[in-house]
Structures are given as structure tokens and as C-alpha cells.
């Protein structure tokens, strides 16, 4: 099958690759770039495990073709932490408050939460739950995820 060139920025790095037009963005990230932190839970656009930030918006990478990402700026879970030793406040609070168990949904939820806190720095519990309603977690019952996001918001707002 013929391929097309794409060029995009992921977690601050530029990539230029040839891809088949039918290749999903998820598969491109995972198989071509070996960025396997983005997980595939349903390939139906429902579970949210494959959520990434696409030009700043939360999108489901299983519902996009890689060619559609030409020129885009993408952030995946591998790009959340500031460096190899420190964690982002969201990651810190998920760890501290047991906001994850199997960890499969976690990358998509972290990115969704990051976008939420950018838009709404002090979200209420209800706002958090509504934002998360597009991300399925089968392990935690969400309670600790909601708490972790609330606590991370406090940290990011300087403890206010």
C-alpha cells in the first residue's frame, strides 16, 4: 500500500515519517514510534484510554488517522513529567492518593485532567466527574482519581 509523508511534533520532538493512509494515529504512535504509553482500550472512541493532547485539545487517537496529524503538536503520557526524575503534580497526586490500580486507563486520564486544569484551574468535584465521563476506569471506582485531580489542582495553584 502506498504511503504518505507526515511531519509532526510529539512531546517537543519533531518526527518525519512515511505512513499508510489507513494507519490509525494510535498505531502510528505505538508501533512506528514505540511510544507505547498511549493505550488502546476499545478502538471505538468510547473508553478514552488512547486520549492524547492534539494541539492542546483532548482527542482520541484511535479515531484519527496518522495522516490527519500532519503538522500537529501532540502530547502523550511520556511527555507529562518535566524530566526523567521528577513527576508532574498530577502524577504525584495519583501516586500518593492511589488514583490508579492496573494503570491502563491512567495515561488517557492524566492527559484529560491536564487539559481540564489548564481550562479550569480550580474545578469542582462535579466538573471533574463530568470531564472524566469520557474516560473509563475499571479498577478504581474513580473516587481516588477525582481526589487526586483536586489535590493536584491545589498544588499547581501554589497550595491555594
Amino acid at each position, binding site marked *: 500500500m502506498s504511503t504518505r509523508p507526515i511531519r509532526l511534533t510529539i512531546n517537543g520532538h519533531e518526527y518525519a515519517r512515511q505512513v*499508510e493512509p*489507513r*494507519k490509525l494515529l494510535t*498505531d502510528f504512535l*505505538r*508501533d512506528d514510534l*514505540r*511510544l*507505547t*504509553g*498511549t*493505550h*488502546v*482500550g*476499545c*478502538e*471505538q472512541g*468510547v*473508553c478514552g*484510554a488512547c486520549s492524547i493532547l492534539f494541539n492542546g485539545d483532548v482527542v482520541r487517537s484511535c479515531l484519527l488517522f496518522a495522516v490527519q496529524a500532519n503538522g500537529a503538536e501532540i502530547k*502523550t*503520557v*511520556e511527555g*507529562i*513529567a518535566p524530566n526523567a526524575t521528577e*513527576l508532574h503534580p498530577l*502524577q504525584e497526586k*495519583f*501516586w*500518593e492518593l*492511589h488514583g*490508579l*490500580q*492496573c*494503570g*491502563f*486507563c*491512567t*495515561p488517557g486520564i*492524566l492527559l484529560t485532567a491536564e487539559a481540564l486544569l489548564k481550562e479550569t484551574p480550580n474545578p469542582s*468535584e462535579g466538573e*471533574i*466527574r*463530568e470531564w*472524566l*465521563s*469520557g*474516560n*473509563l*476506569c*475499571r*479498577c*478504581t*471506582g*474513580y*473516587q*481516588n*482519581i*477525582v481526589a487526586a485531580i483536586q489535590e493536584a489542582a491545589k498544588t499547581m495553584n501554589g497550595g491555594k
Partner: protein
Amino acid sequence: MPYIGSRVKRKEDVRLLRGIGKYVGDIHRPGMAHAAILRSTHAHARIVKIDVAAAVKLPGVVGVLTAADMSDLKTIPMRTGVIPGLERSQQTPIATTKVRYVGDPVAVVVAENRYIAEDALELIEVEYAPLGAVTDARASMQPGAPQLHDATPNNIAANFQVNVGDVDGAFRESDLIVEEEFSTQRHSAVPLENRGLVAEWDEGRGLLTMWGPTKMTHTNWRILSELIGLPQSSIHFIEPEVGGGFGARGEFYPEDFLIPFAARHFRRPICWIEDRSENLKAMNQSRQQKHRVKIGVKKDGTIMGMDAEILFDMGGYTRTHGGVPAIAASAMLRGPFRVKNYRCNVFCVLTNKTPVGTYRSPGRYEANFVRERLLDIIAHRLKLDPADVRRRNLIRHEEMPYDLGKHPFHYMVYDTGDLPGQFERALERFGYEDLKPTCAAAKLEGRAVGVGIGCFVETSGIGPWEYARVEIDNAGTVILYSGCNSVGQGIATALSQIVADELQVCIENVRVVHGDTAKVPYGNGSNASRSTVMAGSAAVGASRKVKDKLLRLASASLEIDAADLILRDGRVVVRGAPERSLSFADLARLALPGPALKSGISPGISEEDFFATDKRPFPYGVHVASVEVDKETGKIKILDYLVTEDVGRKINPMIIEGQMAGGLAQGIGGALLEEFVYDEDGQPLSTNFMDYLLPTAMEMPKAQFISTEDFPSPHNPLGVKGAGEGGITAAGAALANAVSNALGVEVKRLPLKPDYVLELVKEAEAAK
């Protein structure tokens, strides 16, 4: 401060939070090809012809396999839940002459990538001769129903009875006898990560390596060896990260044979990751049972006897769990109550649907729903408070250990606990008494608000044994090799806490290895809330042996009596003279073969232990729910929810509460949302997440979770009772009772989807 009992942050989390944990789908091998499986589109049909010619010719296809390419196919054996008769309906890894559910594997395509493999699936032509499907368990038992397996007349895969006391006599002495039918719907674990395997065959060394088997690594290791005809020494299983288990993941499925077979056949590493619609047709389903129960009581609510019939819908084949959900339901239908006279007749029935296995709290979720509903119905008939009926019958502390009487397939002696005490504290905490007038006042305003109770006893810690080995490496690191597995529950952290306390080391210096058959020789895996109980106890035993060895080594080197040495901060220290000490790394050096053999000590610091028991700890507790039913839409809003559970002893309260919360979410899903629907031809209608609804953050209430350690179990050195299932087990019961209370009608089945709730609303209005 000891680690046991502390809210220790999990050792697993940092790699998962960074997205660098390796799940099976993240594993990449040089030259790896990808498999896709062609599945039956018929629920019941004879295979007339399979034509793979066009698929094989497609560029990028490595090859296609059908049953014709596999000689001497054996059926997949049961690993547990063996009831005589079930073996007649076991599944071959690929359909040979017949298919018995939509999703039954028919062919395996291997191609350069998954896209091509899926293209090739569409080029395979299968001619089926439909045989007529049966999807209802009761209909399936009737004469004239389509027969799934020649060897199982009337589709009854197995039948057994439980007989305790004198039920007929008990009914003669009863003031009221109630007989009702209840049913629970087909739903299941549905972990967020789909199933997957990577298999690689090393032709030169004759070695098959598999990434992906989990939960029961060593059991599956043995089963694969027997089915594929390779000795276990030629097979190496490696457990990667696991995206949730809940009973269904990690059993030996048809693909656990097909993928390694294909890897060996085509001499290529092969990756198979199912997609979600495949998962919702092929992974074990569960929970579908019909109960007909007759219960006799005195006027004051005292239970005299119970007589039950259970139909357990097995789907198309017997899988590895055998009849566990039916066994557990028949064993635990009495729950925490004194039922001296009990009879149960259980039928395991085949239908043309996806085969079943266990799902978190198998059989108990169903049985708790049935029994707790019955108790409320009795309360309504006798005009008693539902809480008082329970008070009358709860097994008391002084009756422990409590023997429920013989069950042919289940251990039946409750170990310890104060069930009435737990019950009263739960009701008090929830404000049960205050809620009754609140509900009544809301009803006067035309609102439907209600409260419901669900009491439970869970089973946990299933034996018969577990393995552990503890070693000290050159850097002084303590390594625990455990026979359990991870399914995402945090077991490596809990075990590290136990070992760190035993050997007085920092938890960062403990590493837990599990799920690798080259490093761990034996194991019984993680299931039935057993890991902390069994693997934790084995870890204690192995740690204590290592402690002895460390003390002996230090004693010889320091020339001090071992009784004067203690472990502290990763060192062996002379009591009262802390400047005289040896680090674990020093001692590991002294234990190297060179010095050790010279001084007459067996080399190495590596000690094994098995923890063995046939007894089981029984955690117990209470669910209480309050709900409001929207009479216009049939939607149920959970206003408040409490789960309490006595777990004997808490290793990590944070992880236990996480288990309770996650369990409750699944229990709410099972009570209100989740259902595998089939049409009458056996076509599955819930094959995506738009049709199979998992609870989201919006459906989950902010609930209270109280775990207690009032009564440590006498059956293991830690005193623990397994905590994986208390959060889910009585959720269907409590919610159904709350909805019944809100509407003033009797819920008889799950799930409480809006269409059923609106039926109940109509029934309530008609009764006015």
C-alpha cells in the same frame, strides 16, 4: 514504624504513571508477525467447508490455520470447579466440526501486521449449516431443544445437590413460607486492557517463550505443555504489566493454545491483541443465574429452612473454571445467616452463548442478591423492619467457628468474626434509623426514595498452597520470588511490606518477582482474594528462613551467639553494640560459594517456603445504599453508599479501600447498567462500549469504605482475610433492596435498567 498497616505508596505506580510500563501489547520482538482470529458468526452450526485460498494469497499474509492443520486436538481442561460431568462439554482451542457460540474460533490468520490480518479474515469463506440456537437455560433443558454436545443429554452439563438438615421438617414448623424466582443477568469483568499474547519459538534451542499469561501463570504453563506436547522445560512464560483481571483475564483460553501453536508452526514471533468487539464475544462472561428459592420462617422472622434450585447458564462450553459460579452460589446462598436446614439443587446448563467463568465474587454476588431480596420480602410480609429480620438470623460471635454443613465442592466453616456487631455499626454510621422517616417524608411529596441493606460473607484465601523464595543479592537487595501474579491490584507492594517488616529493611530494597516461570518454579496465581493470604504467608515463611541464615552467617563471622544478634535497617547488628554489624551485602559476600564452602555453610542466601492450608478465611460485612428513583425516566440516583468489611488485618489500608471502591463501581455496573444481551438466535447485541455500559465517574457516588481488623483469621500467620471482593459482593443486593423500598414493590431481577425500573414504577402505581 512497621510497613504492615501503613498506607505505603505503591511500588508499581511510577512506571505506570510515566507510561513506560510494558503491557503485552507493548512488547515488540524482531520479525514479529500479527495474528487475527476468524470467529463463528453463527451461534450453533455445523461447519461444512472452510476455504482459505484467497486469504493465503493476499500479500503480507504469512499463513492461515484451521482445525485441519492441528492434529490430535485436545480439549482445554478445567483447573477448578470440577463437577463430574462437566468434562463432557470442554472446548477445543479451535472449532472442529461444530460452532456453539458467536465468537467460537474457526481460523487463525497470521500476517505482517494486524491490518493485513484483518483484511485476510474477510477473504476466508466458511459454509455453515445452522443447527438452531438455544439461549435460555430453562428452555435448553427441555426435551426437543437443540443439543450442543452429543455427550450431554438435555444440555445439562452437570447437576449436584447440597443437603443440610431437614428442610421438609423445617417447613412444617414454619409460620410463613415464601417462594420466589430471581435472576441475575449475564455480565462480566471487562478489564480495560483487552486480552493479548506474544509467542516466540526458538527453533534452535527448542524453546517457546510467551509474554502475556497472567493470573495463573504456572497452571497455564502446565496446561499448554499438555496440549501442545512440549515439556514444561521447553516453555517459558513471562508476565508483563496487566490491565485488570477481575477473574476473567489469565485463564487458559483457546488463544493461549492457538498463538503459541502458530508461532511454532510459522517459526515467527507472533503477537495477538484482541479488539474490543472480539473481547466482548470471546472473553469469559459470568453471572447469569436463575434461582427459585423457597424459605420458611417463624413469625418473628427466624429462618427455619431454605430450598433452592439454581440454573447456571454456562454458555456453549465448559471452560477452565468449571462450575465455580454455581458451586459458590449454592454454598454461599445462606450468607451470614443461621440456616440450619438447607437444600439446593444445581443445574449447570449449556446454551449457545459465550462460555462463562468467574467474575469478582462469582456466585456470591448472585446469591447475595437473591437472599437479601428474600429477607426483605419476608420483612414486608411479616411487617417487620428488614434490619430486624437480619438481626434475628445473623450468626453470632459465640457461634464461631461456624460450620454450615457439608457441601460437595466447597469449604464451609466460617473462621471468626462478630457479624451482628459489624451490622449495627454499619447501620449506625449510615444513619439507617434516621433515613426511614426521611424516605417516608419524601414519599409523601411524591418522590421515590429508599434505603436498602445487603449483608455478606465473602470467601477468600483459597489454598491449597503457595510458594515463596527469598534471596539476598550482591547489593543486599531482598528479592521475593512469589507464585502469585499481578492483575493490577498492587500485590508487589503488599508483599514488599510484609518482607520488609520480617527482614527489617527499607521497602525500596525489596524487589518482588512473579509470573516468570524461569525464576519461580511453582505458583497458584492470583484469584479468589488469595494473594495476600497465601502468597503473603509463604513470604513470611521464606523471610524467616532467610533471617535464620543471615543470623547464622553473621554469628560465624562475628563470633557472637546468634541470640545476641538482631536485624536492623538492612544489617545484622550485635545487640547493645550497634557499631558491630554486617550489612546484607557483606553477608551475601560471605555466603558466596568460595567462602561458604570453606567455612562449612551451604552457599547462597536463598530460602524457599510453601504455605499450605485447606481452610479459608471468610471476610464479612455490610452494604447499605440509599437511592432516589426518577419515576419519569426510570433512572436511579445513588444518594449515599456504605461498605464495611472485616479483613482480619490490614497490610495496606489504602490498597484495601481501593479494592473496595473499585469493587463497588463494578457492583453498581452489574446492578444498574451492564448486560450482555443476545437475540433469540444467539447473536450478541452488546459488542461495543456504546451497548455494553461500564460505569463512568458520573455514575459512581462518593461512597464510604470502612475496613476493620476486629477479628484476625486464625488460619494464617498474618491474620489476613482476602479483601478483593467485599466491595462488589452485596451491591446488587443493597441497590435492589433500596429500589424496592423506594417504590414499594419487589425487585426480582437485575439489572435495574430504566425499562425494568419503569415496569416497577407501573406496578407500584397499579398497587396503589
